[in-house]
């Protein structure tokens, strides 16, 4: 836990003009569906199934937060939360549209 907090601090310190650090709340989706409803993409699948099918292919896990879609840097940890509401601590890089994850946790859950 302490190590992760140090990493978070380093990430904050290293942030540039193009990066914004902090805590982000949203739903784990994929770069294919983005902020659009998964039912439009795969009618007979749950949101989590749709996200996992897209991310298993050439798309990636992402966080949709307030209409914005940010690719998540840690794809392995993100898989666990497909379709779920989460809280992510990290640094957002506008240029690559990637949220560099320091920690990820379900809303009201413990930090991973």
């Amino acid at each position, binding site marked *: 836990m302490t190590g992760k907090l140090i990493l978070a601090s380093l990430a904050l310190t290293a942030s540039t003009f193009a990066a914004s650090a902090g805590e982000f709340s949203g739903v784990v989706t994929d770069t294919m569906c983005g902020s659009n409803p998964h039912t*439009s993409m795969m009618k007979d699948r749950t949101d989590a199934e749709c996200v996992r099918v*897209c991310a298993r292919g050439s*798309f990636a896990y992402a966080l949709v937060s307030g209409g*914005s879609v940010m690719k998540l840097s840690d794809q392995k940890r993100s898989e666990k939360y497909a379709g779920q509401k989460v809280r992510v601590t990290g640094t957002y890089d506008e240029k690559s549209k990637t949220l560099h994850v320091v920690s990820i946790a379900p809303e009201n859950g413990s930090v991973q």
Partner: protein
Amino acid sequence: MAGMPGMDRNAKSGAGMADMNPAGMQSMDLASGTSQNPLAWPMPMAMYHHGRWNFMFMANAFLVETQQSGPRGADKLYSPNWLMASASHRVGAKGSFDTELMLSLEPATVTSRRYPLLFQTGETAYGQPLVDAQHPHNFVMGLGFRYTHEIADQTFVTLYAAPVGDPALGPTAYPHRASAMELPQASLSHHWQDSTHIADEVVTLGIAHKQFRLEASGFRGQEPGEDRWIIEGGAIDSWSARVWYLPSKNWAAQFSGGRIAQPEGPGTGDQIRLTSSVEYTRPIGDSAWSTSLIWGRNHDTASRHNLNSYLIESVMPVGAKNFLTGRAEMVDKDELFAAQPAIESSLDATAGSTFRIGSYTVGYTRDFAVWEALETGIGFNVSTYSLPSAIKPYYGDHPVGGSVFLRVRLKGHR
């Protein structure tokens, strides 16, 4: 921060995809035919949907001025180019149908049926074997139909039928290969590794389960004729099989083999081809660092020659707008004097009939935005060669080739 551009799938038409299923996603990630780049490669593909149909477009065009040194070098302005379009539609909950069309204007933009490429061999122009030159592609580079069905979780069966298409033989062909995107010219290994990507009468059956895919194809082995504007036909006389292994999204590896019936025309020998390749892609920003390592071997049943080829190529983005690229090859060539029988027989008596050629290319491309939907860049590359002493009188001691080019590519939505 903005959402994904134009991804409103609540609309009847628009950018992005809609109404897909896992079979459709599986099919969408393929390159030409059933070949495959690493999944992590951000394919430069524009996606749209209309009603329940999804459409995908890719396009790449180069305008190249090339100049080469030595007695057999040549200069030329030419344009390699292609456009690929596909349309897909789900079939029930488990199936997906899609069709792909690939067109090239090279029959018009590569004049005199060739562009200069030192030590390149394969196919003919005006009835003579092409030597030190690369043939243009046909107007219809691909026309195929695929049906993919999910038979169990992460297990898919695919049937691919193509009047012109890419059978299960070889790595992803160079026009589609992630690592070759900034190199306008063909590889010298093309006819050892991926030349069947424009074969006629292709039928492929494949099964994929998680990271593995096994495929078998039947196709017509003869290489395209010189009338590049038509689709040729003929009996299926050749076969191939390929296994893919994709251990992660960054890697794609294949091993394949096949027998190609008389690729150089009636009365010539068959080729037994084996290939193996490993491709790696690591996304960097909006682009990716991609590298391929490929081996291809032809056994000619008429000459009984066993000819090997080895290729490594890479493209690396540096910042948002710069690309460094390179390709190194070693290829055993036995047709360099096919159009000069007297020299060929003289060399055969003194130095043999097969010559191992090394080719080493480095290049650079700089993107500049011209239009939002296009990635436009200017670039250059330089090739040097290693060759046996016996053929230096015909090529010079240190032949060199150089190209400058303008590249225009359709920009992807992701």
